[in-house]
């Protein structure tokens, strides 16, 4: 059995690892969003990749959890009779749990990220604040553009407001859109973090249950008293 205190420590460490990995995903996604890349590409990237990277990291975190749990268990195994040690390893607990956790039913399935597509921001319409003075071809005009002026209408008004204005506004829109996506990714990852934690704690439960049943089986065995700690220098193994 693993003591409650030890389990709490494992869970604490695991939580730190989850936060670290989520932070890495966030950094990677934001790193790309911040670059001057095509907005359509970025939209697709933000839609697809947080989920993809989460799945990847989930597997790595699963291995990390199993590392923590196995380390505790090995300490106990070392004091057992050779036959029990042998039996335990034949059980192949790590692989068994891993397969179960990554199976269709047990695996971590991150939600789809719902990002605000805002087609209007991408290519259909352009919004503008009224009353901005813009220069175009020597003409200075003060215009009020309706909030949702279709893009098709831009050529018509561009003689008045000038192409520089349009480009500048489009750039601003992209910036706003990127910030919006960042916010959405952030909240998506926050939720995903909780889901991930829940999934890993479920895996931990299954692991502990399996270990418990093995431990009970061994405890009731007659071999328990006849300890053969064997002559393998475990300290040496551990220290390398």
């Amino acid at each position, binding site marked *: 059995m693993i003591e409650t205190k030890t389990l709490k420590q494992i869970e604490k460490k695991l939580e730190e*690892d989850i936060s*670290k*990995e989520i932070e*890495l995903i966030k*950094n*990677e996604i934001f*790193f*790309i969003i911040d*670059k*001057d*890349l*095509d907005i*359509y*590409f970025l939209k*697709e*990237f933000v839609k697809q*990749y947080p989920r*993809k*990277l989460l799945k*990847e990291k989930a597997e*790595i*975190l699963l*291995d*990390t959890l*199993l*590392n923590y749990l*196995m*380390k505790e268990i*090995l300490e106990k195994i070392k004091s057992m009779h*050779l*036959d029990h*040690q*042998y039996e335990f*390893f034949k059980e192949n607990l*790590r692989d068994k749990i891993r397969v179960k956790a990554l199976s269709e039913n047990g695996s971590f399935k991150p939600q789809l990220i719902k990002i605000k597509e805002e087609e209007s921001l991408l*290519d259909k319409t352009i919004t503008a604040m009224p009353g901005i003075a813009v220069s175009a071809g020597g003409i200075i005009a003060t215009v009020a553009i309706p909030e949702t002026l279709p893009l098709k209408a831009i050529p018509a008004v561009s003689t008045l407001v000038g192409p520089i204005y349009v480009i500048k506004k489009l750039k601003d829109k992209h910036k706003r859109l990127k910030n919006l996506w960042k916010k959405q990714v952030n909240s998506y990852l926050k939720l995903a973090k909780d889901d991930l934690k829940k999934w890993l704690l479920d895996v931990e439960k299954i692991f502990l249950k399996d270990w418990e049943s093995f431990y009970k089986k061994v405890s009731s065995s007659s071999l328990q008293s006849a300890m053969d700690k*064997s*002559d*393998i*220098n*475990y300290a*040496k*193994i*551990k220290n*390398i």
Partner: protein
Amino acid sequence: MFMERALQKGNFRLTDYKIYKQQIFQLFENYKSLRGEINDGIDLKSLETRIENLKNNQFLIAVAGEVKAGKSTFINSLIKEEILPTDVLQATNALIEIFYSKRPYLKITYASGKIEVIEEEAKEILKEKLKEVASIPEDYRDIPVNLIDLYIVENGELMMIDDDFIKYLEERSGIENLKELKYKIENYAFSRSRDNIPVKIELGYPFPWEFDEIRLVDMPGVNAIGGIHDISFSFLDKANAILFIHPIKPVESESFKRFIASVITNKSKENLFLILTHSAVFLEERERLLEEAKRIYQNLISPDRIFAVDSVLKLIYEDLKKGKTLEEIKKEQKQKRKWVVYFKDLAEEEKLDEKEVFIKYSGFEELVPALENFLVSAPFLELLKILELIKEGYKEQIAIYNETIRLLQSQKKDREEFLAEIERRQIGLKKLETYCYFVLEEAATVFMGVDSPIENSLDQLKLDYYDKFIKSADIEELRKYYRDAENELNVVVQESLKNISKFFREKLEQVGEQFKEEYNIQIPKIDFSAIEETCKRAVAKKEEIIKEVVESIVENWNFLKPWKWLKSSRKKRVVIGVREVLDSEAFFKTLKNNLIETFIEVVEELRDQFYRAFEFYKKSIGKLLNEKRAYLENLKKELKSNEMIDYEILMLQKNIALIEKEVKTIEEFIERLLQ
């Protein structure tokens, strides 16, 4: 240990290598027959693959440089045969591979897939054909013929030449006022089709050169219009050595710097040589210029990889060796005339004979041994590694035979004791298995999870390369970074695999003696190098970036249709060949995006492969332990008569004697190699 010594030795010769290789093939055959069915821990299949690789091994030398730098003359002087046309401008798209063949032949593959082969013809005929297919006709030197060819290769025949197309040629080639040469462009373009544009030229010839395992590739000029093409990149990446040819004066070369900065990968830089040609023209300044080059390029290339040569002097030397007199050489070729006169005098002055003076001042006496040593050092080490593996296998065989002899003897002496001994060994084996499980578990904590070295390296590598992809200024640079990224990824994974091997080997070695003393059992030999090799092969992923570049027009076409930017839509076939939409900037952007996507997938795939490789190690260890267990079980079951035991012991001793003799031969061989 001996391998490190071999590395320091550094005077490998190709001729020696060839002889040693043949001897190793024989030693391997002996090993196979002596080993029989016994499992000595050496992965026979993997060793066989390594032997096969040695048999088929070829050294690829890529010769690059600017147009007119003297590449063809250099190659001719290296292979001792004046077969490449030297007085012509080479066509960019035709890359020439030259290799040794007993019968001369020229194979030309055209863009349409058509193949033309010329066999058993005289040198002059082959040379003439080469001139015809691989050089730019005199009349068309002022138009970008390579770009036109490339366009036809990608899009099919040109039906008309309009202003847009001429503008496209001007933009890509940097040549102005092509409109005035429209008639020339038309004449050229209408005469070209995929059927007469060569994409690959292979020349096999019985060169009097002893390096018959070398394949030389004459690369297109780096400054040629149209630039370096995909096919060239694949050769550069594979090349064992890259020789960059540049005239000795002016020593400073922008094209060389650019070649290093944005054409070849960081990995290929290790294989780079700078060859400064035409050194006889500046004979007085030769040493000074060479030193200057070493100083200028000291941060780009090691000084011992820079050589000053004169290919014409080397060709004269070869003529003399073939029995020609200086008078004959003088008459035959104008190009050599002045050098014959000058160096004849110099020979008298320096009291050298005719041949000596030409080879001395050609600079090839320094270049060739250095090149040979460089090319052969890695395969030489491979020979030594194979010898070492065979030796290890033999040692394991002797240990297994001795163990069996001991068991058989104890069976003969006292059957009860024999059974007790087997049981003792079985317990020992169980302990060993348990120990191995502990080791495997420990390995998992080291090599898997968030703190594993592979995870840390991959995360950092990804961000570094995203940045490089995004910041790259042109396609060449972007492509170089991608190839660099691939190489670096492979290094990360392969280093991790190497560390796993090291980890297991050390752990098992540590416990080996203990088990041998206590339980009289030999720890099974595990061929980690074979496991490592298998995993490396499984993990190495080569993403063909070439494809994306070839599809340039498709990509650009996509750019004009924003909905095509969605990956799912892009998979559909789109119309190819609308020239007006060629927008290199947009294409470049698309390529960048695609690379980021591809890179993420490659990293993910590699990580996956790595974990599978780790599983493979686990299985390999488990398999050997199972075999050992089965072996003990069988011994227990098969109790033999004393006569049978005596006979078996005799046969085993005979085998041991044969193996020991072979081990001695191998040890002597290794000594000889290292002398």
